[in-house]
């Protein structure tokens, strides 16, 4: 695994919103081709901010990278427009499953293909592929995305990103607010793509248990800093991670599991 090239490299990254709010101060992270990297941390730790920085979305949200380095496949991300990153294979899915409500499921998916610059036949082939991965979407292809259930919207958002034929797929809390079975289905598809096609994934999750189960590596963010990093297995074994994020060392099942949580989707 260590022979694989680094696809995304983040070094000592600092981000400020609106010239005042310091959201990240010192984040390091590396994603190698072919692996699944989980980004975990509590509310407000800076996961979303980091993923926004990775897709160079911060300028549109009055945020700014003030220090550090951010490179995707040899490109300086802060100097590459989001749409150019997409064409280079870096595609993201936002927190809170954002579909284009007024467009049908299929139009949402097609938008993902055209945004990458796919031709018609590629779009058609990719549509079939996505429908194969998420059969529920196939059944609802004509339905306006705004009328889908939460889980279906998340699938549509992920499917739309897959239409962009990503090399690195960046997902912000795909499990948020979804039923465990739907979460399982989504992770099964993603892990399957990783195994079968070598799709590289960077996934932010609050659900640490879930994240560590699927990921190869994980980075723990705390208050805008990368506090811990390592292989998923080694993090699972650490006492501090277990007590902080996995609900206690002795009896993991007794404490409130992190998946039973919180907060309506944004």
């Amino acid at each position, binding site marked *: 695994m260590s022979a694989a090239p680094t696809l995304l490299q983040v070094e000592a990254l600092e981000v400020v919103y609106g010239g005042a709010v310091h959201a990240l101060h010192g984040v390091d992270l590396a994603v190698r081709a072919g692996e699944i990297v989980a980004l975990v941390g509590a509310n407000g730790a800076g996961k979303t901010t980091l993923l926004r920085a990775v*897709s160079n*979305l911060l300028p*549109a*949200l009055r945020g700014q990278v003030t220090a550090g380095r951010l490179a995707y496949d040899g490109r300086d991300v802060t100097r590459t427009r*989001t*749409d150019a990153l*997409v*064409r280079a294979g870096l*595609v*993201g*899915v*936002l927190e809170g499953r*954002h*579909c*284009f*409500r*007024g*467009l*049908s*499921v*299929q*139009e949402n998916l*097609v*938008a*993902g293909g*055209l*945004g*990458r*610059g796919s031709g*018609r036949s590629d*779009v*058609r082939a990719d*549509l079939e592929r996505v429908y194969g991965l998420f059969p529920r979407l196939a059944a609802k*292809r*004509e339905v306006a995305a705004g009328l889908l259930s939460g889980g279906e919207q998340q699938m549509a*958002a992920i499917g*739309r*990103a897959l*239409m*962009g034929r990503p090399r690195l797929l960046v997902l912000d809390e795909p499990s948020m607010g979804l039923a465990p079975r739907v979460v399982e289905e989504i992770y099964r598809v993603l892990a399957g793509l990783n195994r079968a096609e070598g799709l590289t994934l960077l996934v932010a999750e609050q659900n640490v248990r879930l994240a560590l189960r699927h990921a190869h590596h994980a980075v723990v963010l705390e208050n805008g800093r990368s506090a811990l990093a390592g292989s998923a297995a080694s993090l699972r074994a650490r006492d501090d991670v277990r007590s902080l994020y996995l609900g206690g060392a002795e009896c993991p099942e007794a404490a409130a599991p992190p998946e039973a949580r919180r907060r309506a989707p944004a």
Partner: protein
Amino acid sequence: MDALPRAAPRPHLPAGALGLGALLVLAYGIVPLTGTSYLFEALLTPFLALALAGLGLNLLTGYAGLLSLGSAAFMAVGAYAAFNLSLRLPGLPLPASLLLAGFVAALAGLAAGLPALRLRGFYLAVSTLAVQFFVAWALNRIGWISDDSPSGVITAPRLVVAGLSFDDPRGRYLVSLTVVTLLTLVAWRLVSSPTGRNLVAIRDNETAARLVGVKVARTKLLAFAASSFVIGIAGALWAFAYLRTVEPAGFNLDRSFQILFIVIIGGLGTLRGAFLGAGFIVVLPLLLARLGAALLGDGFDSGTLEMVQRIVLGALIVALLIREPAGLAALLDRAGRRLGRRAA
């Protein structure tokens, strides 16, 4: 053209190509033969011009979600550009000067759209307000634009196309109808193209649109240009085919609001909406005036009557939007479905 797999044809334009065909036969065949001058001059021609302006604004506000209060300014740019083109290039055929006027308005729209790359919502609306005031100022201050006529009043040239005179009420109606039909077709092609989908994507979620590779800045500017192009030509029709003599005050903020109301009442993000809304705005005041005169008698003070009309119109708009926030288009859809269900 349809090689790209698409979702079901949108319910926008061809609810039934049949109905559309019937409408065109009515508009081109029956109405011109049976209509009176009053029908052409007081109802149909202003209806067409306002519907076209609504159509243009709908591209921007309904589809791309960019709020503009500058519609009247773009109408003015179109009208005064067409005036200058026909004045200074006497050989230019009318269709060409309308088309060029549209392009001039599109350029103005492009400039007005630059702030949209940074601003959103009400802030954007305020910046389009600045365009509105700037154009009013320019029309009053720069005499050249109105060929140095006092207070900027211009008179339209005769409407002649390919040697045929359309300079009577029916002819002006037919010219308007043709322009509106063609531009509606173009708008329909635009909104059902990938670019049109991108407009909706930006409206529904700008960040997500960026994340799937939509070139947001370019698409927003395109929305401004296309919208202003259509609105500019609507302004030229308003001046040339309807009013014949226009002053800058005819394109003030009230007009911008009128166009915005048309779009909201008719239904944001639908092509039909502009026509339904324009029908509502043009026909209803006339009905109310008739009704008022019948109820209150002719002796009634006309100022009071007008105010009562405005209040009734306002109340009707509020009632409609509470009942159906998506406007007349959605209301009709619903009624149509209910009828269909009953028939089945």
